[in-house]
């Protein structure tokens, strides 16, 4: 009973579900760190030494200046009252600051350059690697999760490379330097003040970690909020059609409230950070005031030294705080680099052989020889299939969803390799030829054509990037796309948005035909290319097809009889097997599955 009611409340509460693909940090891992830093290697003799030199110069001055000002200048001013010494001191310090200025310019400039070069290399190798991965890889992941790795994950390493590494060095030098200098001036006062160091380290690590965790929670809530916002904008037409505005507002108030609450908690914690820093610093200052003055009273310390201490005390916090930050960056970098390396280590599931053959000038005869295929171990998409397509023939694959039509097409273009058997092109096993040379001979026109943002011309040219404008227009004319393109505001130069919003499905299809024609492949595959198009456009496409098919081996997947009937051979598939094969009239005479399929298309009209 109670579980029932619990379930129903749960249902109304969780109107939408969002999962986030955000791993924020990972424990430290040396091997991965080394791999990450190997990206620095190309620059270890060029940019890196300059950045380190700059850092070294400015750090040295930062350490020297307080000593000169406090222990030397101030003491002389108070005790010797010697004007010339003061003048020399002032000039020296001015000169040092000039050096530090130069050092800073070098550091900032070369550190950033170094960081950016590394990020560029990393991103490029990631992107290029992904281009080489096979369909199987993309089947398993959402576009968003791949995008995040190339953009955000790579970016989150930016800080580590630009600032992290050099700062780490700089801060260690600073800390050690301060302690050494102070110890030389007065070991006992240094020892007394050092009490604050553990305190500062504690705040910098423990408290910071605590704060970081609560911000992670905020980010998670926020990304959920954004997912919902995004979805609710895209689905607004459905929401309004179904009058769900009010319930959605209720849902949003709830997640917005959760976000607010987690944010408030995080703020509560992170507001503690600064006070603790101030207070731990105050402990040190109070010790300095009290114990320092006692030392002065006993003539164990000069006023100038006292002042030097006070200057350095103010400089303690910065390196400690930054060391904590670098540590954070490392943990974030661990998570990001793990995700990046995961992709980089992914092997293409259709690898190219070492001695793969270049295909040129093929005929286009395709043979499936005892082919079996399974997308995953459980379901077999193709059971032991033998199939022959002669060069220059038009072949149609017919069957229900899941009968294996698309799988055959995927095997022919070698997006996947068969689990058993061979796919032969002009008698050569596809696994023995260069992928590039194979794919440049095979073009696919998909059911859902992707239009890239850019001009219409760019989109047609995508079929062959070195094609002239005239050739693109020629191709468009041949497939009958010219007519509607001319009607667009700027003709071929009209900009289309991503996914081609201003074009209808049929128009997009014609553009992809033009693309395919321009690519001039020997083998053409049409995957349900004419599904949801109005009758007149379909006519246009039929005519375009005739032009397109000339002199090529064509494989068509289609539902509509009008597209299939003229094929030289029709294969009727079911559950990954060939049921029937032959020409339209042969199959009609057989009165088998094909006959039934065709009849079902006319069933209603023949009845009426």
């Amino acid at each position, binding site marked *: 009973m109670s579980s029932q009611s619990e379930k129903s409340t749960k249902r109304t509460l969780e109107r*939408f*579900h969002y999962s986030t693909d955000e791993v924020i940090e990972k424990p430290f891992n040396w091997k991965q760190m080394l791999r990450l830093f190997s990206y620095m290697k190309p620059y270890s003799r060029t940019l890196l030494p300059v950045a380190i030199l700059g850092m070294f110069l400015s750090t040295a001055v930062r350490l020297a200046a307080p000593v000169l000002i406090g222990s030397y200048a*101030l003491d002389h*001013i108070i005790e010797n009252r010697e004007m010339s010494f003061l003048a020399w001191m*002032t000039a020296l*310090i001015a000169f040092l600051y000039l050096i*530090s200025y130069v050092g800073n310019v070098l550091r900032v*400039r070369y550190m*950033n*350059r170094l960081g950016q*070069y590394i990020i560029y290399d990393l991103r490029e190798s990631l*992107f290029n690697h992904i*281009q080489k991965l096979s369909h199987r890889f993309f089947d398993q992941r959402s576009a968003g999760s791949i*995008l995040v790795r190339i953009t955000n994950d790579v970016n989150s390493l930016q800080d580590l490379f630009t600032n992290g590494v050099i700062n780490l060095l700089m801060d260690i030098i600073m800390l050690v330097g301060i302690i050494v200098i102070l110890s030389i001036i007065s070991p006992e006062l240094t020892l007394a003040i050092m009490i604050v160091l553990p305190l500062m380290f504690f705040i910098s690590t423990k408290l910071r970690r605590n704060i970081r965790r609560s911000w992670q929670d905020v980010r998670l809530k926020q990304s959920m*909020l954004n997912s919902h*916002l995004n979805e609710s*904008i*895209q*689905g*607004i*037409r459905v929401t309004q059609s*179904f009058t*769900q*505005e009010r319930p*959605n*507002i209720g849902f949003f108030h709830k997640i*917005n409230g959760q*976000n*607010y609450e987690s944010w408030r908690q995080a*703020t509560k914690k992170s*507001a*503690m950070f600064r*006070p*603790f820093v*101030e207070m731990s*610093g*105050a402990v040190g200052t*109070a010790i300095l*005031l009290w114990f320092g003055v006692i030392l002065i009273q006993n003539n164990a310390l000069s*006023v100038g030294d*006292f002042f030097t201490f006070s*200057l350095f005390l103010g400089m303690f916090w910065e390196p400690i705080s930054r060391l904590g930050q670098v540590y954070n960056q490392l943990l974030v970098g661990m998570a990001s680099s793990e995700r990046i390396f995961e992709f980089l280590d992914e092997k293409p599931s259709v690898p190219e052989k070492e001695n793969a053959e270049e295909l040129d000038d093929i005929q286009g005869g395709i043979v499936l020889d005892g082919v079996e295929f399974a997308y995953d171990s459980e379901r077999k998409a193709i059971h032991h299939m033998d199939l022959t397509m002669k060069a220059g023939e038009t072949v149609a694959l017919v069957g229900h*969803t899941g009968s294996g039509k698309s799988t055959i097409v995927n095997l022919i*273009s070698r997006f996947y390799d068969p689990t058993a058997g061979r796919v032969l092109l002009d008698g050569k096993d596809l696994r023995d030829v260069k992928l590039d040379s194979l794919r*440049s001979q095979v*073009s*696919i026109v*998909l059911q859902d054509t*992707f239009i*890239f943002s850019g001009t219409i011309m760019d989109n047609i040219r995508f079929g062959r*990037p070195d094609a002239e404008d005239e050739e693109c227009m020629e191709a468009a004319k041949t497939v009958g796309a010219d007519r509607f393109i001319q009607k667009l505001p700027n003709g071929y130069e009209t900009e289309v948005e991503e996914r081609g919003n201003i074009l*209808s499905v*049929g128009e997009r299809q014609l553009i992809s035909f033009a693309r395919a024609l321009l690519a001039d492949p020997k083998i053409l595959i049409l995957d349900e290319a004419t599904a949801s198009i109005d*009758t007149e456009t379909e006519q246009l496409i039929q005519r375009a097809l005739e032009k397109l098919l000339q002199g090529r081996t064509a494989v068509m997947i289609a539902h509509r009889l009008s597209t299939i009937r003229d094929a030289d051979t029709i294969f009727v598939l079911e559950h990954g097997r060939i049921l029937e094969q032959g020409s339209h009239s042969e199959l*009609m*005479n057989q009165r088998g599955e094909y006959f039934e*399929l*065709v*009849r079902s298309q006319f069933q209603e*009209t023949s009845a009426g």
Partner: protein
Amino acid sequence: MNTFQKLRHFYWPFKAYFFWSIALLLAVTGFTVAYPVILQFTIDRIILEGNYQWIPYAAIGFFILTMLKGVAVYFHQYLGDLFGIRSVYEIRNSLYEKLQFLPFRYYDNARTGDLMSRLTADVEGFRFFLSFGFAQLINVVMLVFLSLGIMFFYSPSLAFVTLAAMPFLIITVYKFDKKVHPAFKDIRKSFAGLTTKVQENISGMSTVKSLSKENFEMERFGGKNGDYKDKFIHTSNIWSVYFPFMEFIGHICVVVLLGYGGFLVINGDIQPGVLAAFFSLIWFIINPLMNLGFIVNTFSQAKASGERLLEVLEEPQEIADKEGAMEVDQLEGSVQFSNVTHRYAGETEDALKEVSFDAPKGSTIGLIGATGSGKTSVTQLITRFYEPDEGSIFIDGKPIGDYSLKSLRKNTGVVLQESFLFSSSVKDNISYGNPEVDMEQIVDAAKRSDAHAFIMDLPDGYDTVLGERGGGLSGGQKQRIAIARAICMDPGILILDDATSAVDMETEGKIQRAFQEVMKGRTTFIIAHRISSLMHADEILVMDEGKVVERGTHTELLRKNGSYRRIYDLQYKDQYQFLEEAKGGIG
């Protein structure tokens, strides 16, 4: 200021947080400048004058002051943050509510990306100013003036000489900000370009691979990637020129302070402790000034963000319930159009031109015609997503505006060509329009749209949670869930806008048969390209360029030998042949 005035009701109710935060900030500033004063006192009064017995008081006094300062810092920051996030909570709620009710016309021209950036980046920009920017502005002013006051109190001439370089600092900061903000904008823009490129590449991956254009894509990406790198390096170059220079100006002040201050001490004009105090005090002026540009910028950012938020919030909600609109539980479903003319905002041609028809309760109307002929406009007017420019629409004999939007849309089930599903369970997707229905009705709706079988095959059946936009399902499966969703509302009017184009023939047949039953007792509008989908309609309207060019039943229209006949011939020329062949086969 006007922008802040208009957005006032979002943050002003929480003004108490703000004022307390500011009050505490004043205390913080006071405590901050106390340190150099104590230092001066320690050196001059305690050490040099030998009043060593006072030192415990100075040390403890300083410690207590810092503790107080810590408490003040904590509450200042917490309350300031709270002020921002509380206001933003309200703004977000209002924005979301607004977005839920904005008309289709708004969304026709809006881009998801742009709206999202308003809802995220602009909201954040506004919050940052409320939480941080405004208080910091006050802080800078306070700290600078208080430090200046103390310096002049100690030694006007030393203060003057030391701060002589300040105008240079201010000029540098000003120049730096002028250069660095556009540079940052360029970085953001370049990154957006890079993101778009990657996104497009991934979404279009099958197209890229099928045309074997990986290398071409790598090249194009390389350009974007390089551009981002160059923009970034350009910015860091600006940074590397200005930032060390600002620091250098600060150091010049230190050098001048040492030289002139030392001279004054030697001459006995000031005491050494004053000189020591100056070394702290000048950084209280230099550091805030270096940040001033950044802080001022948060203000202009917040103003710009606020304006963009107001654009959304002030968008007119054209289509709303009339005063005293009728709440109707169940509409009968008769629909009448009388001389309806409609033009979409920003278009140059009418989408509908004087369209009239009469759809009695329970009848079926078929709409056929080329893309852009106005079929969908008819249905969007029935659901009052747009309002016609001329003519009137009646439902159950009353003008459409007399009904509340809710009762109108609750009684109209729509299935669109591109079915949008939400990231929630299958069950919740089907019952989206009517969350109260029980499981039985959900299953019944799924069975009728031929979705039950494949839903049961999903890992968690009806409880399976779908990915964004129905991820994991094929186009046909999504379509069938969308159909179930419409059936589940039990509407008096059913609109099927090219609803079966994405499913295969066999399923289409099944759904069509299911529709026959579902349509009983409902007024149904079928938009289709296939004659087989709408041939049984009571009246078929053939649309062309916004006009009804032919109307009648299937048989009547065939006899007319017009455009309907032409479409029919195109679609059915195969059938004759098939029938011939079939006969031939038998004979």
